[in-house]
């Protein structure tokens, strides 16, 4: 109950930030552009224009880059910012526990990110309808829901990091360091490990299972896997690149199975959040 009151207050506060409006505008721009490119591509491939699934694939790319950025920007200052400014003293002077604060922040900021995503996707929906004249609401709704889940995961990461430090600068460095890890370093590490084990930086059949598993781990690929599982479109998962060719040694590892994306998303949400909760609960403010 306490966490809900904080979430409500936090939502009202954060949703009024100017930064959010700018981010949402950028997101709208990208979804409309993504919808347009998706329409063109599906036309070029000779598919019937307006296959919502193709369009979703067109939208998945901007979403999987922009949603983490939006969610981390919204999340990283959530707790550290209140510690820095001193409003945490007001907040914790009221009968809330520290856990209430962290959980309330996660709920409130997730709601903020969800609003941003919904605005972006409604714009995308209108664009798709304008470009193609047809639309599958169910698939689109599922896609939207999973994207909000991705937002939730990154809010948990952002708020978790924010709970571990009293400096918003450090939380921001942590958040964007993590993005660099997921987006750049992760594949570099994968190539390096591959080189060390096989002597080549290019995966050659038979591709080791661990390599496919490793690449499937970060939240982005996990989101793709989960989307693939629920929309029954294997092409969205990392493993699909290799699976179709039957090249993976010993078959697709369980970690790279599309349904396992949900497990990974849950882990990426709850592990950083749990660490943040424990740290924040012990620290002198």
């Amino acid at each position, binding site marked *: 109950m*306490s966490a809900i*009151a*904080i979430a*409500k*207050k936090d939502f*009202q*506060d954060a949703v*009024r*930030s100017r930064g959010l409006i700018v981010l949402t505008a950028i997101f709208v721009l990208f979804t409309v552009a993504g919808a347009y490119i998706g329409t063109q591509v599906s036309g070029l491939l000779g598919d019937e224009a307006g296959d919502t699934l193709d369009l979703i694939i067109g939208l998945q790319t901007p979403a999987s880059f922009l949603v983490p950025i939006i969610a981390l920007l919204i999340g990283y200052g959530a707790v550290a910012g209140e510690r820095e*400014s*001193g*409003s945490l*003293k*007001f907040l*914790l*002077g*009221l*009968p*809330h*526990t520290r856990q209430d604060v962290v959980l309330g922040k996660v709920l409130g900021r997730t709601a903020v990110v969800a609003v941003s995503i919904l605005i972006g996707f409604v714009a995308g929906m209108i664009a798709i309808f304008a470009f193609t004249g047809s639309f599958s609401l169910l698939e689109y709704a599922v896609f939207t829901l999973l994207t909000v889940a991705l937002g939730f995961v990154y809010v948990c990461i952002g708020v978790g990091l924010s709970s571990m430090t009293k400096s918003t600068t450090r939380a921001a460095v942590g958040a964007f360091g993590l993005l660099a890890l997921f987006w750049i370093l992760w594949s570099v590490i994968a190539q390096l490990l591959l080189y060390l084990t096989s002597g080549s930086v290019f995966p050659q059949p038979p591709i080791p299972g661990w390599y496919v598993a490793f690449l499937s781990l970060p939240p982005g690929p996990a989101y793709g896997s989960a989307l693939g599982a629920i929309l029954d479109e294997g092409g969205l998962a990392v493993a699909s690149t290799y699976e179709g060719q039957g090249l993976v040694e010993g078959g697709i590892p369980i970690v790279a199975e599309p349904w396992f994306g949900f497990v990974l998303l849950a882990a990426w949400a709850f592990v950083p959040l749990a660490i943040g909760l424990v740290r924040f609960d*012990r620290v*002198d*403010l």
Partner: protein
Amino acid sequence: MTAIQLTDVTKRYGDETALSGLDLAVKEGEIYGFLGPNGAGKSTTINLLLDFVRPTSGEVRVFGHDAQEEGRAIRERTGILPEGFSLYDRLTGRKHLEFATESKGIDVDIDALFERVGLGPDAAGKKVGGYSKGMTQRLALGAAIAGEPDLLILDEPSTGLDPAGARQMREIIRAERDRGATIFFSSHILEQVDAVCDRVGILRDGELVAEDTVDGLRDATADETTLVVELDHLPEGATEHVAALEGVSNVTTQGTVATVTCRDDVKSRVIRAFEEAGATVEDFETEESSLEDLFIDYTTGATA
């Protein structure tokens, strides 16, 4: 029953000791003034009561609840005006009080609350980003007193208030005590405490150096005198020489003027001591010792 009970509490930040072996008891229904210069450990004590920081050793209890284990239970009965806090710039004053009352699970007349802390109806609808320091302080006080808490913890409550605001704050404090609340408030300004407190504790370097009623403290100073001595020059070691005298509690100097707090009967001994040290006394006068002097004695550390 005691509202606040600290037992042998020590708090260290790294190598720095903020509080050492502090024992403190505040009775229910009293106004307790917690005095001390900045850095004496007042805020640390309050932060311990609110579980913002945890004791290195010792026990902190409020209404019998352990501050660390049962912090929420404590804060359900306590209104808090912290020091060095800020509010949410993008939210209105009304939203703040709505949030505070919702958090406390109470239903009160928010307009009446605004009026009580001296904020007009236009302030309620205004975003707090546009508030002055004094208005912010009043709003936070409104949040603290909402729902008639059994205990009020006020950390430097007059911060940012003009004299009229400070007087209004004292009136609210008295009214809250009269309805039965216990009030614990800290200040580095004596006159605020003097005017309103039932009992005063003076903290210095993390230790309670005096604790009494305001009248009791006054009595203790009654036979003390402040001697202002004008010298031709201040010889090296003169201050220490005088401070070491029996019956001298404090010596401060400013240029060639020395201010000595001492017992009435050692005044001439003090003058002689300056001359022994090599100075010529050009003039001197005595002032009646005040509570202010006592406070300075206790808090500057020159006490003999």
